[in-house]
């Protein structure tokens, strides 16, 4: 399998980020994804969404249990609109993890304590390495091949359209 490489600027969020509250229209009835993508995570970091959008996207680096308690797939669609390329956190909410994979958003379970706000990160999803512009190198257990395949084609629906038999080696 070819290496999947990601490069982007770091945008920090804290621990236990609930994406139902901070990145969905659950509490903003009638508002569409385009609107939510401009105000997502506002309560946690004022101006967060506008910053990431103005810099043509980036990588979210968060604390443990990112997406906890959240089961809305909509959060990933909004993260895509914001230009989020990847999320790094020590752990994710179970359903958030599935939703990210199913919608083609790479997520990485790794220790994020050493990553600084201004770092530019070079990530190799396949090898499981992160290099930061401040000189830190980290490794993580790469996602299983099957999951990388789903991410690579942009999500689960694309995958089963291409591979109705779920053949990961095709």
């Amino acid at each position: 399998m070819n290496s999947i490489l990601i490069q982007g600027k770091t945008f920090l969020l804290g621990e236990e980020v609930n994406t139902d509250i901070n990145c969905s229209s659950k509490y903003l009835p009638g508002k569409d994804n385009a609107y939510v993508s401009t105000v997502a995570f506002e309560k946690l970091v004022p101006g967060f969404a506008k910053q990431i959008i103005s810099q043509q996207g980036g990588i979210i680096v968060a604390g443990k249990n990112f997406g906890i308690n959240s089961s809305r797939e909509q959060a990933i669609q909004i993260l895509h609109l914001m230009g989020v390329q990847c999320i790094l956190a020590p752990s994710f909410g179970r359903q958030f993890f599935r939703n990210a994979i199913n919608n083609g958003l790479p997520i990485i379970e790794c220790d994020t304590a050493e990553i600084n706000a201004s770092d530019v990160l070079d990530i190799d999803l396949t090898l499981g390495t992160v290099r930061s512009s401040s000189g830190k190198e980290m490794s993580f257990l790469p996602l299983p091949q099957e999951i990388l395949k789903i991410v690579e084609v942009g999500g689960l629906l694309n995958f089963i359209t291409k591979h109705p038999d779920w053949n990961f080696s095709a």
Partner: protein
Amino acid sequence: MGHTISEKILAKHAQKTSVVAGEVVVCDVDFAMVTDTRASNTIKMMNKLDRDALKFTKNTALVLDHYSPPPHPEAAEIHQKMRIFADQANTHLYDIGDGICHQVLPEGGHLTSGDLVVGTDTHSVTYGAFNAFGTGIEGSDVAAVMASGKLWFRVPESVLIHLQGELQPGVWAKDITLHLLGKYKAEGLNYKAIEYIGSAVSKMDIDDRMTLCNHAAELGAKAAILEADQKTFTWLEAHGAKTPSPVYADHDAVYAFKDQINVSLLAPQVARKHHVDDVVGTDQIDRQPIQFALIGTCTNGRLDDIRQAAHILQGKKLAKGVRMIVTPASRQIYLAALREGLIEILTSAGASFEAAGCGTCVGITNHLVPGNNETVISSANRNFKGRLSNDEADIWLGSAATVAASALTGFITDPRTVTGGTWRNA
């Protein structure tokens, strides 16, 4: 090396001899469920797939339970779409008032021991009470299942919790789950599959076993699963389920960790306001007034829960100023309670009955809105601030017996201290 129940169910459904935790497998799914909170997204995803022949629809149920009855035109429109979709695709449909998804699926005979069941709701872990692997999913997942009958899973690590002893009169499965939430904290078992074993589980009736598995969602569990026994088989047969294929763990199965709890020593527990894992014994609460009492939800809206309340409130009145709502988990439970005379007992005591559904739990139908500075004692599973549409109200959680005892006195009350509070079905 031996395997856990979850590993064995996933292996069998992936046509493999064995699987290990962390591995990704593609499994044949036995049954899929979609609630009205996720139906809009699911139908959108299905349309993206643009497939006429959805192979799996006969093994799919659409359940109109959360927005039941619909509080606004948008919800009513989702319901219209669901009815049309169910008709066209030939899925099962449970309409408004039929009941909560996690109750109507087992009642409808849609699952059996050894099955793999998915649903668009975190409390899909409830099906573990029947020795099925039940877990929560989202719209893309459902679309994939309906198109192919299959879905990917990352095999979870299993945790073995041995519940020794026997629950004392007035103490219920809810008190165990609250105790575990206090111990492991909310989401403390994120991704894990919990297996509960032991004499306390064997002695529980099915209603309590469903509570035990259901509330594991708040621990973050991917699944919570019990061994099947004669009680399981009798219940499944009575509800028209397929022949069970029970799955047992190997004696040398590998668990992330094991724990033992002697439940004989457990007192009724409550989760204090806002945090499901801020748990103490009712005996440690000093005259905490309540104004609202709720018995219902997928956690504790079953017949045994309504019976607990009726034994406590028979011939009595709710304390002055207390309002009480009972929402049975399904129409079948409502009918059973009606036939047993429980509805008359509770209505005479001052309680109001709502049609079966999730509205009084999630605060999206606005049928239970507490006032500012009011306290609700609820048999539900979540109590975060604002859950019932008012940030200025507090929600405490307890068993149905604790809720009824508290409605009787007007204070958070240990059910063992009131007449009828130690009732248990013989």
